[in-house]
């Protein structure tokens, strides 16, 4: 589904990603872990097409298409979804109105008829259950005055509505208490299928107790320096990142 080869990206001339290689197949869950500043969020942003990041080398093939050639909105319409670490507030625009615009633009791109109000609301009701989101929240201005947990839940709700092929969860666990974490994870797990894939970007192992990854990758200084299964995450939880940092840094000095 997703094939990242030798991806280099920089911001304002400073290189952040220095040669990422990653293969993701449909049905898989990959966790990207790593210390602060290792480039985790950058990778998520580059895949979504954030303009500030300049891709200097490498390629990203998504379902046979050169993803980097697509605008951010077309990437979304092709099925790439980013659950933001810090979802933005849009005053005066209700979640419902926002999502209806989004869903219908995506449908139009895919050659489908727009959903009318009734069908849209039916779909919304169905998906609301997944993340136990309150209808009242959806009639409020998008993310405005939402608690941290509500914002993240709303991200997963949007994911459910847009039915992406590749979901990238950027630090979705940050700012969540244990109950909210369970609800959000439960939503993600229910959306999982053999046809879609998920990248979970996280700092802590905690989230991976609930969203169990098939693979875990450790990102450090813009490269994937170690890959393994979910046991790797547990090892990291226990030992921290220092042993990996040391191994990589000593290699570099040799």
């Amino acid at each position, binding site marked *: 589904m997703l094939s990242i080869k030798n991806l280099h990206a920089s911001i304002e001339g400073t290189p952040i990603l220095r040669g990422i290689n990653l293969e993701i197949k449909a049905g898989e869950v990959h966790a990207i872990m790593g210390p602060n500043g290792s480039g985790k969020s950058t990778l998520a942003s580059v895949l979504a097409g954030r303009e500030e990041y300049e891709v200097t080398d490498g390629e990203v093939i998504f379902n046979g298409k050169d993803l980097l050639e697509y605008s951010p909105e077309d990437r979304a319409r092709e099925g790439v979804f980013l659950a933001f670490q810090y979802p933005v507030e849009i005053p*005066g625009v209700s979640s419902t109105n926002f999502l209806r615009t989004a869903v219908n633009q995506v449908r139009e791109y895919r050659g489908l008829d727009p959903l009318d109000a009734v069908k849209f609301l039916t779909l919304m009701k169905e998906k609301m259950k997944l993340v136990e989101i309150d209808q009242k929240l959806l009639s409020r201005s998008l993310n405005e005055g939402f608690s941290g947990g509500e914002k993240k839940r709303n991200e997963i709700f949007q994911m459910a509505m847009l039915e992406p092929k590749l979901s990238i969860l950027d630090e979705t666990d940050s700012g969540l208490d244990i109950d909210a974490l369970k609800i959000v994870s439960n939503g993600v797990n229910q959306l999982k299928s053999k046809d879609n894939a998920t990248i979970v970007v996280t700092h802590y192992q905690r989230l991976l107790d609930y969203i169990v990854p098939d693979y875990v990758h450790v990102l450090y200084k813009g490269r994937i320096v170690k890959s393994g299964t979910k046991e790797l995450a547990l090892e990291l939880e226990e030992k921290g990142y220092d042993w990996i940092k040391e191994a990589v840094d000593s290699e570099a000095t040799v």
Partner: protein
Amino acid sequence: MSKDNQILEDFTSKEYEHGWSVNYEADEAPIGLNEGIIQWISAKKEEPQWLLEWRLKAFRTWLTMEEPKWANVHYPKIDLQGLRYYSAPKQTKKPKNLDEVDPELLDIYKRLGINLNEQKRLQGIAVDAVLDSVSVATTFKDTLSKLGIVFCSFSEAVKEHPDLIKKYLGSVVPMTDNYYAALNSAVFSDGSFCYIPKGVRCPMELSTYFRINAANTGQFERTLIVAEDESYCSYLEGCTAPQRDENQLHAAVVEIYAGSHAEVKYSTVQNWFPGDKNGKGGIYNFVTKRGICAGDHSKISWTQVETGSAVTWKYPSCILKGDYSIGEFYSVAVTNNYQQADTGTKMIHIGKNTKSRIVSKGISAGKSQNSYRGQVQVMKRATNARNFSQCDSLLMGDRCGAHTFPYIDINNPTAKVEHEATTSKIGEDQIFYCNQRGIATEDAVALIVNGYAKEVLNQLPMEFAVEAQKLLALTLEGSVG
């Protein structure tokens, strides 16, 4: 240049939609301004002597007045002697009803999306169509007259209801109120007149559609709305003008009178030609709008969506004379390219327990300048007066300006006045967030801007609100048709 600036840059390429004009045979006054011209206009309109004298008195006062300079707008001096003060489509005989109106004139309105044919019109809105200096048609007159409601052109009202005109003309905006109001009083040509008798609730929206067609012609319309005790009406005003290289002057006066327990809602969607991308051409819109809540428990509510004009100078105001009367002002003013707007309101609290509410949303893009200027005045005997003001500014890009000039003048210790102001920018983050959900950038900007202006747009009658939303998007976007 950052991404959002570039996006906004693209938006400025949008052409004004109503920029076309039509050639029709016109009945015009000679160019220039003097007592002879005023006599010419008055004679043309077959006005009574008292009205001619009223005009001349206004003109003589105007000659002694100076153009106001306090507004935060800059434009070259207007050559008032180089303008034409009357231009009307030639009609061989006066049409008695819509069927007799020149189809060519009806076509002009059709092109603007306004069908004057009553059968084809949506129920619920009566329209007075004003082209340059005259009203060409008014719909639903008969339906309304059964309820005793008068809705007609100002000229007609002078003939048919002289007593009402004599009583109320200049009662809210005195002829000597300000430079442009005085000029309007001297040379005004047409406009609408509404009269709602005591206890009548007007069953449909009343609306006037102003269109400037002729070149080098000023439009000086005059609107007078009188709502007697316990009556209600909602009035809408829309405006467009052709795209011309020269600047055109529009100096209107609107007066509203509300008796006790009466309510008047006045909504404007102003879309005059704003000038081109380089600031060439466009309408100078110098308007005086004022309402008086004369009776107790009366209410006047102004809602305006200002998108057009090169220069706007406009402060729809309320004089809250009756006890427990309420004044409201809801405004969205959008400026783009080189547009300048200095707009706001005045709330004058005279009666006891009077309340006013001001919600102003400015949106500036391009190299435009957008100012809010508002005055809240609480007089000595206005015990327990309340005011709440909210002034928000939204900036798009980094070459525009937003300014707020609140004036608060309190002469009664029981007054409670609140003023809130915010300034924000459409962020790259917001646009990217929308993009990431599959929403195109232009639609994202429209969504964000409409969300920002929602509180005001919600005040507009349903049909108008949809129009206004589209207009906001159009004004700010480059390629949405």
